[in-house]
Each structure stands twice: as structure tokens, then as C-alpha cells.
């Protein structure tokens, strides 16, 4: 058992004792450790069940769990054949602004070649905005709901 798996078990046990469910699955964590920051190796995720795959890929690429709306959308598709489901999830995430902004590549992807069109490059130019402290300070003064949307797009 790897150290990472052991650490996960300790945290999961402590949360269980506190009667709090751990939102992150072990498979999500173990597929994510030691991963290259930009080159996401899709082959690490392919053996997961549809639900596990959807969650793990979201966390590895977007650095967050799917929100309620996304979960509800994918829940309806868990019964799809594994390959079809995985391709749909990857297609959806590959189009996200986070992928473009952080120049994330889906490597060892058996389903499609990732497109890097004009939209991808235009979005990528927005990366500079995430580094501008004055803009961040301005953003912090915006209403909470708008801050949530901005975080989803840029962070």
C-alpha cells in the first residue's frame, strides 16, 4: 500500500469517526497523485466505473468535484457503456476554460485528439488575468455569486 493510500485511509477514518462523509473517493485521489500538472494521463482513469471516472477526471483536471448541476447531468448517463460515457465526459471537460487557460493536455486518450482551436488559444490568453493582484482584489469586492462563477472559470 502506498503512503498516499495510507494517508487517505487515516483521513477517511477520522472523518468517519466524526460522522462526516468524505466527498473524495480513494480512486479519485490515487489517480491524481504524482500526476503531471498539465499532461493528464487518461489511461490512469480508464478502468474506473462511470461515476468514479466522472469524479476523478473532474478533480484531476478542474481541481474540484463536479457541482450539483454537473452531477445531476452525469448521473443520468451512468448506465451508458463505459467507452461512450468516458468519451462524453472527456469531451465535455476538454472544452472547459480551465483546460484552455492552464494549457492542459489529455494524453494517452484513446477517444479523440484534443482540439486547440481559436477559442482554446483565446481563452488561454486569459491566464494572465489570474495573476493580476489588482484584479483579484477587485474581484473580492464583487458579490459572492459572481465570485463563484469567476472561480469556476479561472481557478
Amino acid at each position: 500500500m502506498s503512503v498516499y493510500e495510507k494517508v487517505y485511509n487515516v483521513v477517511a477514518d477520522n472523518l468517519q469517526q466524526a460522522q462526516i462523509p468524505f466527498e473524495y473517493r480513494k480512486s479519485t485521489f490515487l489517480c491524481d497523485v504524482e500526476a503531471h500538472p498539465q499532461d493528464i494521463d487518461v489511461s490512469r482513469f480508464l478502468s474506473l466505473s462511470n461515476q468514479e471516472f466522472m469524479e476523478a477526471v473532474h478533480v484531476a483536471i478542474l481541481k474540484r468535484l463536479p457541482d450539483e448541476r454537473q452531477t445531476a447531468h452525469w448521473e443520468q448517463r451512468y448506465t451508458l457503456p463505459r467507452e461512450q460515457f468516458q468519451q462524453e465526459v472527456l469531451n465535455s471537460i476538454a472544452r472547459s476554460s480551465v483546460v484552455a487557460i492552464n494549457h492542459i493536455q489529455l494524453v494517452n486518450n484513446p477517444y479523440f485528439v484534443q482540439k486547440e482551436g481559436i477559442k482554446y488559444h483565446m481563452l488561454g490568453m486569459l491566464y494572465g488575468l489570474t495573476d493580476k493582484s489588482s484584479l483579484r482584489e477587485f474581484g473580492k469586492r464583487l458579490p459572492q455569486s459572481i465570485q463563484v462563477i469567476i472561480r469556476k472559470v479561472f481557478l
Partner: protein
Amino acid sequence: MKVYIDVSVLTLATFVTGIQRVTREIAIRLIGMGDVEIILLHYNARKNLFYKINNIAFIDFYAHNQGKKEKMITRQAVELQEIGQGNIFFDLDAAWMSRVKRSYILPVLRQQGARIVAHIYDIISVTHPEYCLQRGVYNFMDYIGAHLQYADGMISNAQATVDELCKLSKHLQVGLPKCHVVSLGADYGNKEIIADSQVPSELVSAVKDKPYILMVGTIEPRKNHKLLLEAYEKGLKDMGYNIIMAGYMGWNMEVFAEVILKHSDYQKRIFHFEGLEDEGITYLYQHARFLAFCSYVEGYGLPIIESIMRGTPVIAADTPVYREIAGDYCIYFKQDNADDLCERLSYYQENEDMYQQLKSWQTDYKAYTWETSAYKIKEILFGYETHT
């Protein structure tokens, strides 16, 4: 010796508090010492590269409030491959929040012969994840797992944290790198008195009404603000105390916030202030009867030191870490026990001479300065260089 420090989380932070504040203070002083080459790094996720930070611009911005933050980051890329034999990679910032995982870069650095030292502020995310945001817990699992495997040394601020690390490493059956304890600095030497005219009028009216018990810091489950409210109902109110809480309302506190807002004594005897400047916080310390520190668990407890140095007596939950940092300069109550908290405060209410003695005893307290903390850290880092 070159010491590489990734300060990406600090450079992106809008508010410099907590770990970012420590990172800032230590980095400024390590640069200022001059006998060690400090290379501050900023990670660019789009390019997947670290960029060197201009040390002079860093000091100008963070020590002298001059210049723009984004101007500090140079165009000089630092490839991971550069950090090798004879170099130290010092993880001082809250790097688990960075997009570049330690489980990815530490094995690379280790293979290249770099020495790795981590500043471990606490391991609360592992020992008490119920008090932490799960996203942070998730990121920290990677961070601590990587450092337990690849770090050559760890620096903590309290022996209590080192003891927790020992327990964890035994439980995980992994070796623990050599651990060092370096207390955090606290520079509140200047006893500047803040006048009423320097703070918002609502603060003045809140402090002038009745003696009050103060709690400082973000309001979150781990800080246990509800205990002070319970103590207020159980006795503090009748003893004539108000309570004042200064700090942002954090995550998972919706229920508590509602209880406060709907309390019949809200803004009469129970006060909550958010977003206060340093003057406002100092002003609250200045007039408080006691600072209450009720947290279930902490890595250090800087407000305790801050309060003692400002001459305000502290009543804290009885935990090893507070005993370690404040010793006899603080009075303790049984953790999570509102009755005991009331009882202790009642004693000092009825024995004013003892209260005054406590206040005067505190003037002897000698806290670390940031210079001392940074110097000790530098000595530790030098030790790793000579072992290369």
C-alpha cells in the same frame, strides 16, 4: 548554497494572513541576511514553469508597501532540473494549494540530489479533517504524503506538531525525516496606544459599554466560538461581561451566524466585527478584559502571543500546543467546557488583585522575533547543505 522557495500562494493572496504572513516575514528576513542565496519562485500554471522573483521588488512590496505585486515576477524561468545537488528546496508557503503537486515535483528534485525541507505548520487536515474544508484536506493529503517520503527535514512551530507527525509516521509505517522546532515570530514590541478617533465609532461604543471577552480570528468550526456564546449564557452575562468577536464569518458557520444575528443581545452586548484594520484589532486588544482562545485544535495560536504582548490576559483551552507556547503566561480552562471557562473568569472577577498580577506578570513574556525565527531556520537549512 542556494535555497529555492516557492511563494506562489503568497504572491496570489489578496490578504496576507496566517501562513502567507509567516512566509512573507521569513522570506523577507532570509533575503536580508545576505549570506544565503534565496531564490523565490512563482509557478505559472499555463507554462508549467517556475519564474524567479526579483528579491528587491519582493522586499519593496512586502516590507515597504512599494511597487506592484505583479512586477516582482521576472521573466527568468527556473527549470526544475536546475534545482539539484547542493541546492535546498524549502517548502515554506501553503504549497498544497498550488496546481503543481508535491507528489509530482519532490521525487524529481530528490533524484537530482536537491535537499528538501518542509515547514509543516500543522497536520490538522489529517488528524482533524472534520474542521477543515474537504478540498483543502484533499490537497494536503498529497502534500504531506509526498513530504513524508521525500523530505530530508521538517520544521514545525511547536513540539506538539512534531509529536503529531511522529504518531502519524508510526501509524503509516513510514520513516519521519529529522524534525526541528522553531517558534514563530511576533513583533508587537511597539505598544502604540490607539485612540478612539483612529477606529470606527461602532468599535468605540462597543468597548466602552462594559468589560468584554474578545475572540480574534476567522469564525470557523475549529475555533469553537459557540463555546464563548454558551459561556455568555451560562454566566458571563450575569458577571457583567460583553463578548466581542473580530473576524470574517468563515465556511460552515451559517447556523452560528444566524444564532448571533437573532440573539436578543446582538449589538447590545454581543458584537461581531469583520474586516477590521490592524488599528481596530489593536484597539480591541487594548480594552479587552481577556482574550478567549477556545479552538479545538491549532498548529500554533499566534493570537495568544499577540494578546500577551499587548498586555491583555488570555484564557485558553487546555491543549498541549497552548501550554507549550504560552506556559504560565496564560490561564487555562478545560477544553470545550463552558462551565469551567465561566468559573475561571469568575475567579479573576472576584480577585481583582490576581487579575492585575496576571497583567503585570505578562510584561516579562519574551516572544520570538521574526529575525530569530528566520535565523534559526537559516541555521537548520545550512545544516542540510553541509550534509550534502
